[in-house]
Structure formats: C-alpha cells, structure tokens
C-alpha cells in the first residue's frame, strides 16, 4: 500500500509540473522500479527546498539505460551496473554511482515455521532443482529443532527482467560452480525450475498464497509486508539475518574507482551475503542537445543532495539501506568529474 501511495504521489507531482512556472528547471529520469519509492519520496522533499521539479519513471533498469542512451531523460537508474558493452554502445562517456543498497531475502511460506537457516549449498541446490521437498535431510541438518513438513518446494523467481534477479543470480554463481557453468547471472536467466512471478509484488504474492513456496524478494518488500525470510550463512561461516546493519556491512568492502562492483558474498563477517547497490547514470559531459548550464547544475546539485544525510535518512525511513560513508565520499568525487563544456560543474 505504501508503494501505491508513493506512486500516486508521483503522479500528482508529474501533474503539478505542468501547471508550474515555465522558468523553473525541470529534470527527468527513468529506470529501476526497485528504487522508485526512495527517489520519488526524496524528490518530493527536494522540490520545495529548491524549486527544481523532477519526474521519475519506473520503467525498469534496462529501459532506463535505453532512455538515457536516447537522451530523453537527464539521468538513468539501474540495479545492475553497466557492462563494458553497454557503455561502449552509449553515444558519449557516462559516469555511474550507487545511491543506496538493498538486500535480497529468501522468503518462504510454511505453516508454523517463521525462522530458517540456509547454507549457500542448500540454497543453490533448491534453485538447481536438486532439493525438491521440505523434508530433505540437508534442510533438517542445518535447522535442528525445526520440523519440516513432507511438502514439495514451490520455487518462485521473477518472470520479468530485474535487477533483483541480477543480484540473486550473481550470488548463486559465486557459491555454486554448477550454477555458474550452467545458468550464469543476469537480469533474466534460463531457470531450471520454478514459477515466475511478475515484479517483487508478484513474487511475494505467489509466496504468501502458496503453501510450500520459496523465493527471493527485495528486502524492502519483505520488511514492509512482514513475510518470513531465512538467515543465510555468509563467507565467514556465520548465519546472518538480513537487516539494515548486515546489508550496510556488505557495502563496506573495497570499492573500485568506477563503483562497478557486486557486493554479493561479502567476506565481512557481519555482512548479509545477498545484497546489491542501485546506480544512477549521467553523461560525463553535460553540454549536449542544447542543454543549459542551469539544467546541468540542477542535475548535479540534486544528486549531491541525494548522497547527503538528509536524503539518505529518507532511504532508511522507507526501508532502504543508506550508503556507508566511504561510498558517499567516492560518489561525491565522481560527481565532481562531470563537466559542462569541459569545466567541472560542482566545485
């Protein structure tokens, strides 16, 4: 319900854009649906402060990159960082930087069971179709005291291309050589088993409506809807429950200068292993298509503000995980490399 409310709020924001004064700067972006509630809520807070109007379309990460490529939006948003091939296909160099992170949780629907531990091996075997029943000894072994029913596991995955799938399958390739060689990772993969649900709500709905179901959903959704989810054994051998702290810990590792990193299977002992960033993408040189300096400045100031504690607090309020300080610092240094006619826009 919260997300629907936010969506309506966005619609109002867009509607009000048209009645506004013509001389104020308007920005537009498109992409990830996962991060949309965070952006729209934060933008609503930003507009009264600065008068800059921002519209955001949750059209999917891939479509967001396409919109930026066609130069119909000022920024793209994606849950999967751009590959070298995607970057090469852009008409001009781009920069990308994370804005917040989230965890992917393993949700389940078993009568009377609210907590569960999973090892990477068991998780991969379920998605490989090797473990097919909840009474499998491998599950009982890591969950002493939990009485699993004799019930087939209904594996659930996303049917639409999705950044969530990208994060989850990236984790599977790291923990299962068999998964890596047979299925790999990406926003859409060739699933060996399972039911496809459309969007995070579709997967969560299928899980909550099907006894014996098991699937991956974006943490924000599971936290808000209070669907039970499993704790996962991380690289250090500790079972970790997804939370703000454990997801944040996953993002604390060494960050490459171009920020293109998957933070799944983090070596940090406090980190939840299935986590990922979501990125914003801008053109490095902002003087294109008759764009004014004012527009470029507004765009850069917006994202500078989005990394500040004010906006990051908004992220946490609506169940996203704020960036660690080290990543914020790196992001800000990336923003300073964006230019207008070759001159840096932010000082």
């Amino acid at each position: 319900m919260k997300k629907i409310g936010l969506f309506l709020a966005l619609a109002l924001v867009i509607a009000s854009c048209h009645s506004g004064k013509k001389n104020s700067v308007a920005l537009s972006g498109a992409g990830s649906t996962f991060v949309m509630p965070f952006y729209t809520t934060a933008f609503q807070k930003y507009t009264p402060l600065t008068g800059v109007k921002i519209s955001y379309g949750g059209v999917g990460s891939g479509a967001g990159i396409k919109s930026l490529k066609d130069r119909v939006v000022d920024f793209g948003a994606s849950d999967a960082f751009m590959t070298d091939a995607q970057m090469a296909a852009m008409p001009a160099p781009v920069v990308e930087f994370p804005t917040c992170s989230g965890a992917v949780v393993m949700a389940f629907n078993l009568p009377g069971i609210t907590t569960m531990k999973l090892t990477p091996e068991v998780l991969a075997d379920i998605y490989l179709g090797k473990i097919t029943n909840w009474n499998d000894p491998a599950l009982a072994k890591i969950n002493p005291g939990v009485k699993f029913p004799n019930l087939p596991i209904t594996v659930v995955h996303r049917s639409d291309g999705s950044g969530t799938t990208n994060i989850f399958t990236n984790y599977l390739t790291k923990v299962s050589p068999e998964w890596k060689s047979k299925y790999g990772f990406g926003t859409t993969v060739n699933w060996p088993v399972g039911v496809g649900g459309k969007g995070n709500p579709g997967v969560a709905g299928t899980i909550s409506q099907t006894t014996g179901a098991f699937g991956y959903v974006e943490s924000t959704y599971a936290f808000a809807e209070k669907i039970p989810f499993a704790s996962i054994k991380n690289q250090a051998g500790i079972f970790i429950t997804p939370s703000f702290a454990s997801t944040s810990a996953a993002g604390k590792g060494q960050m490459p200068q171009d920020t293109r990193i998957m933070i799944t299977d983090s070596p940090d002992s406090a980190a939840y292993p299935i986590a990922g960033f979501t990125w914003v993408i801008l053109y490095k040189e902002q003087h294109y298509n008759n764009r004014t300096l004012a527009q470029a400045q507004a765009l850069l100031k917006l994202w500078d503000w989005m990394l500040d504690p004010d906006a990051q607090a908004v992220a946490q309020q609506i169940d996203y995980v704020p960036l660690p300080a080290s990543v914020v610092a790196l992001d800000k240094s990336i923003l300073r490399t964006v230019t207008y006619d070759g001159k840096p826009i932010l000082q």
Partner: protein
Amino acid sequence: MNSDKITKYVLFVTSFIILIVTGGMLYSLIQGSLPSFHTFGWKFIISPEWNPTKGNEHYGALAFILGTIYTSVLALLVALPMAFSTSLIVAEYFRNSWFANVVSTCVDLLAGIPSVIFGLWGFYALRPFIVHIGLTQQGFGVFTAGIVLAMMIIPYAASLSNSVIMMVPNELKEAAYSLGATRLEVIWNVILPNARSGITASYILAFGRALGETMAVTMLIGNANIVPKGLFSMGNTMASVIANEFGEANGLHLSSLIALGLILFVITALINAAGKYIIKKFA
C-alpha cells in the same frame, strides 16, 4: 471545394492513417526481428530453448508458440459449449424475457472487465481451488490460464452468435413450427444451418483474442520458459514473455522478443482472415 468533397477528403485521410499505422507496425516488427532471424534462421521457430544468459544466448520460439496454442485451444474448447448455450438461451429459448436480459447483461459485463481483474480472480480464487482439489501442486499452468481465458472470450463468442441467431428469419422458424417441429428440431434444422457461418466466425474471432491475451495469462501460467508437457504443466505464451522480458532486454534478446511479436501478429492476422473468409463464404 464544397462540403461533400471536404468530407470525403477528411474521411480518406483518417482511414489512410489506419493503413499507415498497421503497415508501420508490421514494418517495425520485421525490421526489429531481422537480427534474430539472421542469427537463428528458421530454427528460431522450431527451437525450444530460450536462454538469455550472456555468453550462452540462444533463442527459440517453440515453447511460447505451443504455450500460446495450448492455452487458446483449451480456452476455445471450454468457452464453446458455454457460449453456445448462452446464445441459445438469450436468442431463442428465453428471447426478450427478463432472464435473457440478465444473462446478456452479465455477458456484456464480462466483456468489459479488464484483463487484470480476470487475472486476480484466477490467482486468488481459481488457483487455490485447483490446488485444493489436487489437480496440481501450486495451481499455476496451462490449465488454469486456459480456464480463465475461456471466461474472457465467452462474451466475444456469445454476443456475435446472439445477433446471428436472432437474425434467422422468423418466417422460417414459424414455418417449421407449423409443420409440427419441436423446438430442438427447429434449432438443429432451421437455426443452425442458417446461423452456422456467423457462429463459427464468432468462435474464430474469440480464438484470435485468446491468442493475444497477456496480463491474465502471465499471472497464471507460471512463466516457465519450457515446452508444456501437458495440461497441468507450467509454460509461457508469446504475449506473456514479451510483456515480461522486454523491459530489460537488449541486442539479440530484444530482437528475439520482437520476432515473437511478429509471429504472434502473423498468426492472429491469419486467424482473423480465416474468420472473415468464413463469414463471406457461407453467409
């Protein structure tokens, strides 16, 4: 220019726009699907594998073509007797009675319900029922999707059949009655021979509609990109896989989705042409 000419001109331009849009749609579908047909050739249509993972990319349409045909044929088989009974009730047995009015209003209402509502009904009502009676483990699949599709196409099949049955001349029916024919005999020997082509065409058009239905199917078929192994197997349809995957697709993946769209376009066009032909030929 007089007003008559102006009217003619305006009418010509507006209908020409329709031609341009249809032609442009076909052109962009062909244009977009070229890379895929270039890479896979005619094997695209007969290959059952659909693998979007980078490095192992391979696309084939067979699973989706079969998924589409299975669900639509099942929908037609279920809808056929129901739509036929409804037509006879409304147009013959209880013609102009309050009962016929209620039934035909309900049929019209069904036609106006958005597809996502049918999907929700299938998801929250039909699916648990199918699980409850033990037909399948989790309730998704060709069967569930086909049943919901059947409900969606009944109005299309029924309302056209209604008008065709009503158009059978009263003189013929009265002549048969006067010779002592029973109602059943009148239906079989007078109404059906006269309305046959219209009824058949209405079912073909309903079938065409089932082929392209997207939302309700994607909510119920399980979205497993495999060739359905039977009535209770999961699967996927062309319309559903396009809706699901195009947002994140690019390159060969996108081209293959557009190629699926082209195949669906051609199949639907053929079905519609067949419907038109039957109306013309036997009317």
